């Protein structure tokens, strides 16, 4: 907190002393003023991008957990599916976003799609690892009672994997915001009736309005932090009993 305040003061002083043009580096004060002036756009953008990031993130959790559940069931399935999961991770999202826009249109759903693609990998990877990282004595206990595959999955593997899911979810939540904003760079340029934070950023960049652009940047960061903190909060409250693997 102190560090942040100090940085803002230094920033303000540098702008004053260096007489930098506002298009290059506006002062913190100018950014704050611009944020206030564009508050309606910013809050609207925050809501739209937030909705896209959250939908994409939640879909990733659902789809990723399902894929992981399937992959955890056999080595053959894992070997068959894992290359495609890695493909998801290695395809540069910025490069396929335009393609997805062509296929899916200048729509909210395209933004969600990009978000899912970028935030899916950590979930699949983390949950698969969690479903398989079961201590031998617990597996023996279930084997002893002749527990079915389903019972073992439901009563042992899934509860163990929750901790891994939540660790992955923290990474995914941040990625989801990045995915949504990157997608909006492309979706927003189509002149469609869509305005998220990513759209605002590209729009203001073209107009050379650096101060509101930086305000939008701050809003994006705030969105990422909000998502991260929410995941953390859920881990520590609702899911707390699954978070220690003693």
């Amino acid at each position: 907190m102190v560090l942040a305040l100090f940085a803002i003061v230094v920033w303000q002083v540098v702008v004053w002393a260096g007489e930098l043009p506002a298009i290059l580096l506006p002062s913190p004060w100018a950014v704050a003023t611009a944020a206030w002036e564009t508050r309606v756009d910013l809050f609207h953008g925050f809501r739209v991008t937030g909705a896209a990031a959250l939908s994409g993130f939640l879909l990733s959790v659902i789809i990723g957990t399902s894929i992981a559940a399937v992959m955890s069931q056999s080595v053959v399935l894992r070997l068959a599916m894992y290359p495609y999961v890695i493909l998801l991770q290695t395809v540069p999202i910025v490069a396929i976003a335009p393609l997805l826009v062509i296929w899916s249109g200048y729509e909210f759903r395209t933004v969600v799609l990009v978000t899912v693609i970028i935030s899916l990998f950590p979930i699949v990877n983390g949950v698969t690892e969690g479903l398989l990282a079961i201590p031998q004595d617990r597996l023996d206990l279930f084997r002893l009672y002749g527990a079915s595959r389903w019972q073992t999955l439901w009563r042992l593997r899934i509860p163990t994997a929750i901790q891994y899911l939540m660790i992955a979810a923290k990474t995914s939540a941040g990625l989801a915001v990045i995915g949504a904003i990157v997608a909006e760079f492309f979706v927003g340029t189509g002149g469609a009736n869509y305005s998220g934070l990513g759209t605002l950023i590209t729009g203001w960049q073209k107009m050379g309005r650096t101060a509101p652009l930086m305000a939008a940047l701050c809003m994006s960061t705030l969105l990422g932090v909000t998502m991260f903190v929410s995941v953390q909060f859920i881990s520590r409250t609702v899911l707390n009993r699954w978070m220690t693997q003693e």
Partner: protein
Amino acid sequence: MQTPPSSLPSSLVCRGLHVRFENGPDVLRGIDCDFPAGEITSLVGPSGCGKTTLLRVLAGLQKVGDGMIDIDPPAKATNGEIAFVFQQPTLLPWRTAIDNVILAIQLSRAKTLRGNLSPMEAMELAEHELGLMELPKDAFRRFPRELSGGMKMRVSLARALVTRPTVLLMDEPFAALDDLSRTALGDLLLRRWDERPFTGVLVTHNIAEAALLSHRVFVLNAGRIGEPIMDDLPRPRDESVKTSTAFGQLYARISSALRSQGHD
């Protein structure tokens, strides 16, 4: 509350048991031994002698390469008739003490338990069992991380006993406990056996524990088993037996058997 009918304890007879792990030497090399019904038998021996493997074979957790086991009357682990106590409490950390006991009821396929017990009855049964294991009532709904090592082992024993097993297999259950808890749990185990005898097989490193808890002691060494050492101390017994001369003599017999096997 409905209590499942108690059945007679089974006897276990092993003939020519061989077990070999992949790319390894034989862990068990022709084990012939009897575990009489309603008696507690201890398996002692140096680390790696195969005693835990023999226990896992009896539980059905380890496949045998050769040989046979006869259980009479037949009992199955999947029915909760053969129960296993691990060296670690092996409690699921996201379940409370009582829910960990209920797990055995949920997983066990015993018709007497799962088929007929409502969740309410299962809970009553688990509470009853935890009470018998002398776990304080306020600990029933605590999570394992909130329990001491001794308390966790009580829960683990309650989970094993809640299905009313006729055979109880124990893999050094008290090894990780302090002396006080070890003594208390040993006494408790004896009391539970006095109330409702089961066939017990106890793997242990501790000669005094073997002498106190069991009717007979087998010494294992390098995958072979010796002649049983009979334990004729009076029953019911508790810790106080340890001060008797007979206990001293028994202790000496077991440790000399261990020594002589060690020099094979």
